[in-house]
């Protein structure tokens, strides 16, 4: 748990961060967001005192760490930054070993920890241990950067726009990986970004800052549905509010049971009360959809199930909706890990109710 109490930073008589108080509960993924110069990065860097605090207090767990020597505090809080900041003259293993080394862990424990972290990020330890940062791709380097921040099993993890410098495709992969790592480690995270989509995707709580002040600190859904003021409303973006909302809804929330056709060849829309049905193979994997189109004249059509045209329970509804629109089909099959049909999501479901 990290708690900021009345955190203030004054530069040359001007408050750049003003009385920011917020509490990121243990295991929560807190995101600080706001326009450039709103003080989000300054706030983050005050937490591990890379920037000295003018006024205010910081609690880590139940401990007041405001007076702790900065070096000691930093060894207890992981820190990952944009463009990784990996030490170019050290191998991946040496980079990850920095903080455990400073804390004087025994060598075997450090070695075991390096392997554990590389595994956590799906990097082959044998291959990557001895690589130098310049031999890594941007995404790999960023993973190692986060692994380094997690190395000494810190009480919290601070991340300053860590995915700001990678391409959109890699960023998406890294975000998913970050969610998984957060789930697996249960770390308390404070994450700074200026990208609202990134915040909505990652955060369990979002703090919106403007001109050095905390404007709203809420769960993503509340931020979207009950913005505190006009600034928040504008910052979130009115244009695709509906889609943003769906980016915080998951397929499993809208999933309903699917009608399986015993005799697919005899399916006819007009003779049946159901609008559509699924044809499956003997392993339970869906082969194709009969019906399920918007217009009656298309209802005889069959749609082959493909990897692109299907959903998983942990997919966002935004993505599911996007797939429906793209394939012009009113319903998507929901598949489990063995690609068996476990249900469906339908356009009517999205429009019809709150989860």
């Amino acid at each position, binding site marked *: 748990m990290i708690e900021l109490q009345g955190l203030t930073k004054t530069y040359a008589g001007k408050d750049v961060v003003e009385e920011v108080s917020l509490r990121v509960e243990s295991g929560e993924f807190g995101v600080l967001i706001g326009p450039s110069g709103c003080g989000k990065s300054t706030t983050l860097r005050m937490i591990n005192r*890379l920037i000295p605090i003018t006024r205010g207090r910081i609690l880590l767990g139940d401990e007041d760490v405001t007076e702790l020597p900065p070096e000691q505090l930093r060894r207890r809080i992981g820190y990952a930054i*944009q463009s990784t900041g990996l030490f170019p*003259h050290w*191998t991946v293993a040496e980079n990850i070993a920095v903080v455990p080394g*400073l804390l004087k862990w025994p060598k075997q424990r450090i070695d075991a920890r390096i392997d554990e972290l590389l595994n956590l990020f799906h990097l082959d330890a044998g291959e990557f241990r001895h690589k*130098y940062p310049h031999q890594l791709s941007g995404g790999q380097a960023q993973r190692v950067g986060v692994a380094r921040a997690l190395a000494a099993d810190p009480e919290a993890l601070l991340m300053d726009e860590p995915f700001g410098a990678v391409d959109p495709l890699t960023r998406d992969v890294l975000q998913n990986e970050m969610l998984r790592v957060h789930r697996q480690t249960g770390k308390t995270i404070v994450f700074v970004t200026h990208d609202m989509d990134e915040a909505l995707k990652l955060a369990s709580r979002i703090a919106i800052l403007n001109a050095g002040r905390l404007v709203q600190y809420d769960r993503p859904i509340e931020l979207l549905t009950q913005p505190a003021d006009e600034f928040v409303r504008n910052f979130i973006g009115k244009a695709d509010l509906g889609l943003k909302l769906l980016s915080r809804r998951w397929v499993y929330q809208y999933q309903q049971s699917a009608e399986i056709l015993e005799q697919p060849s005899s399916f006819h829309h007009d003779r049946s009360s159901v609008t559509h049905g699924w044809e499956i193979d003997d392993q339970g994997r869906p082969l194709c959809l009969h019906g399920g189109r918007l217009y009656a004249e298309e209802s005889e059509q069959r749609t082959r199930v493909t990897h692109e045209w299907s959903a998983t329970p942990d997919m966002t509804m935004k993505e599911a909706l996007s797939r429906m629109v793209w394939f012009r089909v009113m319903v998507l099959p929901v598949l489990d890990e063995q690609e068996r049909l476990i249900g469906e999501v339908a356009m009517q479901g999205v429009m019809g109710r709150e989860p």
Partner: protein
Amino acid sequence: MRAVTLRAPTQGRTWLLVGLSVLLVVLVLFMEALKPLFQFAFPDLQSPLYDRESFLQLTLDHLLLVLVSSVISVSVGVGAGLFVTRRGGREFEPLVSSLAAIGQTFPPAAVLAIVVPLAGFGFVPTIVALTLYGLLPVVQNTIAGLGTVPATTLEAARGTGMSRAQILLRVELPLAMRVIIAGVRVSVIINIGTATIGSTVGAQSLGTPIIAGLVGNNIAYVIQGAVLVGLLAIVTDLFFERLERRFSFGG
């Protein structure tokens, strides 16, 4: 510390370094063997081989001059470079840079002319002249080298909880080392050449046969001294080139 550069392209340079080093040692030890050659080339000379001191002694004296002056230059230069890149010393950077520049603007001969009346003849004035002359590249490259360390790397280093001393010793200096060594390389090479003029004020070096040859109109002496100084400079340069490469980390 492991170097990460590829070995293959440097193979040729390595053999050049080994070959020239062997040639240097052989010439230093067995210059007398070439006496007939010099006799043949300069038949008018009564004494075609410098023999007042052994070439081994002259080379060792020369190396001592270069070593002592370089050690002082590097300690003072790196020290000054570190001082002006720390928090407390940043205001002094222009001052230190111009002082070092002045040191190099003064021709060593002029420094000798000033120092000899103060410190007498021989070793000391030569050391002073060489030290001042070799300071600038070390200071400049130390400042430049520390300046090449990326801000994000420093930020990350602070974020891990390293102390100031740990950041300097484990991150900044290793990353700046290549550029600093390049400065030391220039400084040492300059001093190997410049140490010869120490002989004008009585410091024994490989310049001694050169000066004697110029005074006594003996070209053979000049060649004997100059060839050894030249070879020494080239071998040292190749050595430093290798050393520098040990400190390049990707990119």
